[in-house]
């Protein structure tokens, strides 16, 4: 948690008496985030010792939804790839865990391998979907997801059209199993958040931010647009694959129609756009909000979805930058310091 109006930072100190403005992004904000992140992670990791099972199970849902939201945000918010087909990798990830488990791999390790497998599958897939102009990309990815769905159903070893339970975890004591699932989910969500943060702070992040703002201008100033987009597509496939692995590990069974359901993409769109696209805080807020609404109101039937759907429409019109966009506009708080601050020469604390 940091305030943007910080003055220290190595670049800032070196150029303090020069007459040129300085550009600064590291320093205290980044350190606050690092320390805060480690503390938060430690507290969250301790939670299975404190809380009742129901709460940790809800947290698992939050973790995999947050991982999906972060990945969709990376695609749509930074690389301009609006996908309605990320459920391809949720489904493939879930089924990869099942397949690995049939081969004797422990499902908690299988979750990570599922992420890797999805990235491998995403590479040839990317050559097909990247033929599409931005406008058709959404539809193309959706059709691909349906192809993977229909191919999965053909494999009777994976349960065909009716799905299959994940039996290899049933030998573990339920309390221990819940804790292990929780830690795996926490680790996956943590890796997705940290991965996005490091990716966006690095050279690729600069390229992606340029692409987000203006693709043509980015390309003409030397950004390899195609390569940057493909990297993001692979990373997002891996993240959604691991999240799909978490879905099967937490539910202990998988059904093709729900694993490959377009609802996953719908949830991702909802979480990211309501939370705030093009930020890292937004998807996490969106995921938290969505998890809370889903947990508390899903017992009343489809009403919560009606309300969520109805909430999207005014949000799209009056809050295009999402809830976090509202926070950014009203306060100087930034949790993930991704932006660069320009300081005019001489002493000044206020530049943004």
């Amino acid at each position: 948690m940091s305030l943007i109006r910080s003055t220290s930072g190595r670049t800032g100190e070196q150029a303090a008496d020069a007459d040129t403005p300085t550009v600064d992004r590291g320093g205290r904000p980044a350190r606050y985030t690092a320390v805060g992140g480690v503390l938060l992670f430690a507290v969250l990791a301790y939670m299975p010792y404190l809380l009742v099972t129901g709460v940790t199970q809800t947290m698992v849902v939050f973790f995999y939804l947050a991982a999906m939201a972060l990945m969709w945000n990376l695609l749509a918010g930074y690389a301009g790839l609006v996908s309605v087909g990320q459920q391809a990798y949720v489904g493939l990830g879930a089924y990869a865990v099942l397949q690995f488990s049939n081969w004797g791999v422990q499902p908690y390790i299988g979750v990570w391998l599922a992420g890797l497998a999805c990235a491998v599958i995403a590479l040839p897939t990317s050559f097909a979907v990247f033929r599409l102009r931005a406008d058709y990309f959404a539809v193309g990815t959706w059709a691909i997801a349906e192809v993977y769905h229909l191919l999965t159903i053909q494999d009777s070893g994976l349960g065909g059209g009716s799905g299959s339970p994940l039996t290899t975890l049933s030998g573990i004591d339920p309390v221990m199993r819940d804790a292990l699932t929780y830690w795996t989910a926490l680790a996956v969500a943590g890796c997705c958040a940290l991965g996005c943060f490091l990716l966006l702070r690095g050279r690729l992040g600069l390229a992606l931010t340029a692409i987000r703002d203006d693709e043509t201008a980015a390309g003409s100033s030397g950004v390899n647009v195609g390569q940057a987009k493909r990297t993001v597509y692979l990373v997002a496939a891996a993240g959604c694959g691991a999240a799909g692995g978490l879905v099967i590990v937490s539910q202990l069974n998988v059904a093709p129609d729900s694993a490959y359901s377009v609802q996953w993409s719908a949830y991702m769109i909802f979480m990211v756009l309501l939370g705030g696209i093009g930020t890292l805080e937004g998807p996490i807020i969106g995921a938290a909000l969505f998890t809370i609404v889903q947990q508390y109101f899903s017992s009343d039937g489809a009403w919560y979805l009606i309300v969520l759907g109805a909430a999207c429409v005014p949000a799209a019109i009056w809050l295009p930058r999402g809830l976090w966009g509202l926070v950014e506009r009203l306060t100087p708080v930034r949790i993930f310091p991704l932006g660069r601050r320009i300081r005019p020469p001489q002493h000044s604390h206020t530049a943004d």
Partner: protein
Amino acid sequence: MIWIDAILQGVLAGGLYALFACGLSLMFGVMRVVNLAHGDFAVLAAFLAYSLISATGVSLLWAAVVTVPVFAVFGYLVQRGLINRAMTGGPLPPLLATFGLSVLIQNSLLQGYTADSRALAPGRIGTASLRLSGQISLSYLELLILGLAVLVLGGLELYLSRGRTGRMLRAASDDPEAASLVGGDPRHLYGIATALAFGTLALAGLLFAARSSVSPSSGPSELLFGFEAVVIGGLGSLWGTLLGGIALGVAQNVAGQANPAYTLLAGHLLFLLVLIVRPEGLLPRRSIA
């Protein structure tokens, strides 16, 4: 013989895909808006017609005569009230808004009508068929649907190329600012485009329900078929959309004849093949819709 039958049935199914898809093509062509609720609005129209028929006992024809204009007006209002406003924020807000509508419609129908699928009884025409040979017979209802699709697509094509408002729609599609300079208010024109799209999708929704059945959750898959028809045919051409719909229907029916499990897969694979080999579609043309 069964293969010829499969192809003919595919052609008939394709007409309905095209009728449903032309509104999608129109909205995308004029406004660059991907209406994620297109299928759900069609399902909504079918359910409203269902209620109308069960409440008053009118025939399907009269239900269509009422539903289609009502939906056209409804479309104009949705465009003016929601989508135009969302469009000012770039391409993503309309996506979120129409997605919200999709979730809203699906789940409201689920609450109001349960998850059961419903069919609209087409009357005597539903069971009659044209017998071409011992193994091939074409349902009059499906022939009528194909005829309607050709008529609607042809009418739209004529309207866009000759009609005064149609020409302004093409102008707004090319350059909304320039169009407003010569007297066309883009907000109104966008409303007209959506009204046309909603009228055709309502008709398609009713015909879907008359031909087989619809359930509250069948919107998204119809949307996907519609999209595929548009892309296979080539954006920018309504006749292309008809060809795309027919190609999709034939692929599905022929593969389904070989093995029912491959019906949907074949359609998606044809779509991907066209994307990879010929991304501009079968009948590309520079125009709207």
